[in-house]
């Protein structure tokens, strides 16, 4: 017997020590000399898997059923062999998307579904309560044993366990809910957990050594004596006479293997707190080794206790304490108690923080966001307050469960209830990582069904067996329906309640997951997320932890950068927000312009670290108008082959050209139409109009109609030539004669403007084989342009024809203002007209482009030489022998 103050003082001292280690480690982390970036520390920190259950429950279990405590540890051993594959993938995904909890992970996979996140959180919360209760029970009974105090009898406000629970809540808050942004790792917590793993291992081994060689002459003696007793001998075997023993062993192993990944605290330590992927290699064997060592003495202690106290007379679960006490080693008993306390505290701290994060991000914040839509209050203090509340609530609820159902079961059984709850995450989570067909609806259906069955077959019976619910429904089924009996559902009898529950819940869960997922094709968003998850390992291994630019960017909305800044400030704090945006701008080179999809994406990722990915998505969506992704969009995002990308680029630019052309044409067509209509209406509405005025208007209508016809013809012409549908009637042409003819046709126009035209051509030129009308069209176009731009009364236009062996060259030179260099390129584009745009003479803007098409069709080329102020020289060349090219 030890005095209560002593025990309490020792406990407190130990907890303070843990706190000190955490503080120190935090400091080192901030300085950059992290203590925890070490594979051994990482492996040790996963020792948080071993809780008070290991300390007390395993021994108890061994004392009643021999080796049947082992599957709980064999499962994780086997699971760790998959660490390098499965866990590495999880870590990569989580790091890339700043996922900070298991609810986040699952929700993110299925399109950042808030409903899913909430469901997972609920399951985790409810499921973990028995486990928390277990820890409290262990500490309580340990304390009672050590100090001889009455324990948990009496009203609840006198129950020391309650105060232990509250104390632990405060401790947990101090550990992990001091500041927000859970994307930062809890360096201190990890260090403390690694330390306490060591402590509990050493304490347990110490007790083991004491029992083996202090109480007996070694394990050999224990086993020999046990084997000689008929009541103890079976414990050395498997007790394989039970029905379905194989199934039960298998089920337990599987359950434990799933739990080592899916328990919130496990996910937190394995995935969220991981600092380096390569540590997983060490983890694969170091953690199983830890499990082996801590379990080595379980059987000897159990048997030793049974031998010493006699079976059936003492509570085997507390052998680690009662044996040292019985042999007058209170110091060792205290050490053992501290070890158990350590184990329980570790579990509670990590579990509570993980669950509080989930509740805050996936239950509370979405509700609060919805309530606050529109009112931009600073909510950065809110998630923290929520987390602290949840931690306290969790411990109180755990205590409640302890009071309500804690006496019915042995510790081990309580823990297994929690295992079975988190096992429900397996289909949705692992299915989501390896099967692209999993959909949100499937995950929801599976989880809901699994959870419901778990509650029915495990949770409720546990409460009923403690007397808080009428036990009748256990024996006879609800409303007397025997088929629905919780522990023999649909008549499946013979299994222990755990295997039975596991069977039904996982069957329904996985079955519905697959069936409902296959009922409908994944939506665009789901497909996008599926690819990100399932193919996560296909991305280059580097860039983990940074946003890689190659990630498909799903936002296609616009949003003011002010709104985004406000959003960021609201959740990350003003300074972090400013830093984030400046950072991004700096990396993009320049001041932040309009926010684009990449910035929005990055913002979303940052927010996810603080408030969870589902809430982050909702928050950003509220600011940015997002277009829903159609499956086509997803496919477009997936196509990363250069050919397809190039083709798409080409297609897009051609499309744009077509659109530009269309809008130019419609504009050009509407302009003369406007005049025509206006004049016609004006004449109609004014019968008394002055005849001269009327005549004037009629002339204008005629002119504009002609302009319109010309335009329509040219557009059609252009379209025909470009699409290759034009008719080319080739004949033999005498270019010199053609040039003369062209000049003659336009002579009147030149004369009217007082422009002199000179023709320079050799007497004989070789014959050209081409469409005469088309070539004439080109000549007329150039001549009319010259007529427009040459100055009146003094303008000089020269037409020169040259022929050499290869080609014919024709130039039309005027002495007009010329074309500035920057416009020279544009002159051949549709609807551009050169010269001073303000003094633009009537034209369609299509003449030169068509001319160029014609010339190029015959394998020739067209050019413009011009110096501003010294006129312009348009020219073209036509080879004598060329292939006609389709444009």
């Amino acid at each position: 017997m030890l005095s209560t103050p002593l025990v309490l003082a020792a406990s407190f001292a130990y907890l303070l020590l843990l706190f000190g280690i955490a503080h120190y480690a935090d400091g080192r982390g901030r300085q950059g000399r992290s203590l925890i970036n070490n594979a051994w520390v990482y492996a040790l920190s996963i020792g948080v898997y071993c809780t008070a259950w290991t300390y007390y429950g395993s021994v108890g279990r061994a004392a009643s059923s021999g080796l049947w405590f082992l599957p709980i540890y064999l499962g994780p051993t086997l699971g760790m062999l998959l660490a390098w594959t499965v866990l590495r993938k999880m870590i990569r995904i989580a790091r890339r998307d700043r996922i900070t909890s298991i609810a986040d992970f699952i929700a993110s996979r299925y399109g950042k579904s808030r409903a899913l996140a909430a469901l997972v959180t609920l399951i985790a919360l409810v499921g973990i309560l028995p486990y928390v209760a277990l820890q409290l029970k262990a500490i309580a009974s340990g304390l009672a044993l050590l100090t001889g105090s009455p324990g948990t009898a009496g009203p609840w406000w006198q129950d020391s366990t309650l105060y232990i629970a509250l104390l632990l809540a405060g401790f947990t808050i101090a550990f992990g809910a001091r500041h927000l942004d859970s994307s930062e790792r809890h360096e201190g917590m990890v260090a403390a957990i690694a330390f306490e793993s060591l402590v509990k291992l050493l304490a347990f081994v110490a007790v083991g050594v004491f029992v083996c060689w202090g109480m007996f002459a070694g394990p050999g003696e224990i086993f020999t004596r046990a084997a000689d007793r008929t009541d103890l001998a079976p414990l050395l075997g498997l007790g394989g006479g039970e029905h379905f023993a194989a199934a039960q062993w298998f089920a337990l192993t599987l359950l434990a293997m799933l739990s080592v990944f899916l328990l919130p605290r496990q996910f937190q330590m394995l995935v969220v707190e991981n600092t380096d992927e390569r540590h997983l290699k060490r983890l694969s064997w170091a953690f199983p080794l830890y499990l082996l060592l801590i379990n080595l003495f379980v059987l000897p202690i159990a048997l030793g206790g049974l031998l010493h106290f006699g079976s059936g007379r003492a509570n085997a679960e507390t052998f680690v304490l009662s044996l040292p006490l019985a042999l007058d080693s209170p110091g060792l008993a205290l050490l053992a108690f501290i070890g158990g306390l350590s184990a329980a505290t570790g579990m509670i701290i990590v579990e509570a923080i993980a669950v509080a994060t989930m509740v805050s991000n996936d239950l509370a914040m979405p509700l609060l966001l919805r309530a606050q839509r529109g009112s931009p209050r600073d909510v950065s203090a809110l998630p923290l307050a929520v987390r602290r509340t949840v931690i306290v609530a969790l411990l109180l609820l755990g205590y409640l469960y302890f009071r309500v159902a804690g006496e019915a079961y042995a510790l081990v059984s309580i823990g297994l209830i929690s295992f079975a709850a988190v096992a429900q995450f397996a289909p949705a989570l692992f299915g989501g990582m390896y099967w692209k067909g999993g959909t949100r609806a499937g995950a929801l259906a599976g989880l809901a069904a699994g959870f419901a069955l778990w509650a029915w077959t495990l949770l409720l019976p546990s409460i009923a067996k403690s007397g808080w619910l009428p036990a009748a429904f256990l024996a006879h089924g609800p409303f007397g329906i025997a088929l629905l009996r919780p522990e023999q559902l649909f008549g499946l009898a013979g299994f222990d309640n755990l295997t039975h529950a596991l069977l039904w819940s996982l069957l329904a869960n996985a079955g519905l997951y697959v069936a409902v997922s296959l009922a409908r094709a994944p939506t665009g968003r789901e497909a996008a997320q599926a690819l990100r998850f399932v193919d996560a390992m296909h991305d280059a291994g580097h860039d983990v932890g940074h946003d890689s630019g190659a990630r498909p960017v799903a936002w296609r909305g616009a949003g003011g950068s002010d709104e985004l800044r406000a959003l960021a400030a609201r959740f990350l704090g003003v300074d972090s927000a400013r830093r984030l945006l400046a950072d991004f701008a700096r990396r993009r080179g320049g001041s932040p312009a309009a926010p684009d999809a990449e910035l929005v994406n990055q913002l979303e990722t940052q927010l996810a670290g603080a408030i969870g990915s589902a809430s982050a998505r909702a928050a950003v969506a509220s600011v940015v108008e997002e277009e829903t992704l159609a499956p086509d969009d997803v496919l477009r995002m997936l196509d990363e082959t250069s050919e397809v990308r190039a083709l798409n680029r080409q297609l897009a630019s051609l499309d744009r050209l077509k659109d530009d052309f269309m809008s130019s044409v419609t504009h050009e067509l509407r302009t003369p139409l406007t005049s025509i209509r206006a004049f016609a209406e004006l004449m109609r509405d004014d019968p008394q109009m002055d005849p001269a005025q009327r005549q004037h208007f009629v002339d204008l209508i005629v002119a504009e109609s002609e302009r319109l016809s010309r335009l329509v013809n040219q557009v059609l012409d252009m379209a025909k030539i470009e699409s290759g549908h034009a008719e080319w009637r080739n004949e033999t042409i005498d270019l010199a004669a053609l040039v003369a003819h062209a000049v003659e046709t336009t002579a009147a126009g030149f004369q009217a403007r007082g422009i002199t035209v000179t023709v320079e051509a050799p007497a004989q030129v070789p014959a050209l084989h081409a469409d005469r009308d088309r070539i004439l069209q080109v000549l007329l176009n150039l001549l009319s342009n010259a007529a427009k731009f040459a100055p009146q009364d003094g303008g000089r236009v020269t037409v020169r024809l040259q022929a050499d062996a290869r080609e014919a060259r024709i130039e039309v030179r005027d002495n007009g203002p010329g074309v500035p260099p920057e416009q020279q390129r544009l002159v051949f584009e549709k609807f551009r007209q050169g010269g001073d745009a303000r003094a633009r003479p009537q034209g369609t803007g299509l003449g030169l482009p068509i001319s160029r098409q014609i010339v190029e069709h015959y394998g020739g080329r067209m050019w413009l030489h011009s110096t501003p102020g010294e006129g312009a020289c348009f020219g073209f060349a036509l080879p004598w022998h060329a292939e006609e090219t389709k444009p």
Partner: protein
Amino acid sequence: MTKHVLIADDEPNIVISLEFLMRREGHRVSVARDGDAALAAIRSERPDLVLLDVMMPGRSGMEVCQAVREDPALAGTKILMLSAKGRDTDLAKGTALGADAYVTKPFSTRELADKVRELLAGV
């Protein structure tokens, strides 16, 4: 009281028809043939209403509209935008920039006259 209407358009024939229309309505008319001239005319002559073409060389009608609206001294000027572009986005842009009305070409002379009357009624 006769109102002063400024016609800003680079197409000569359209200017003729608008000029005739506005004179028939009894307004005093001046003309600008490009964006910069339009803005200068608005500033110097302070017309009551501007018939503003969007597609003009130099400053576009949109730019002119924006400049006028940014100048508090010109707050009383009514702006009626004319454009061959009639998509919703263009209309929205025009209204967003502060145009009082937006009419697509080709327009009905009667409708245009009505709109002008409406806008000038409040001046």
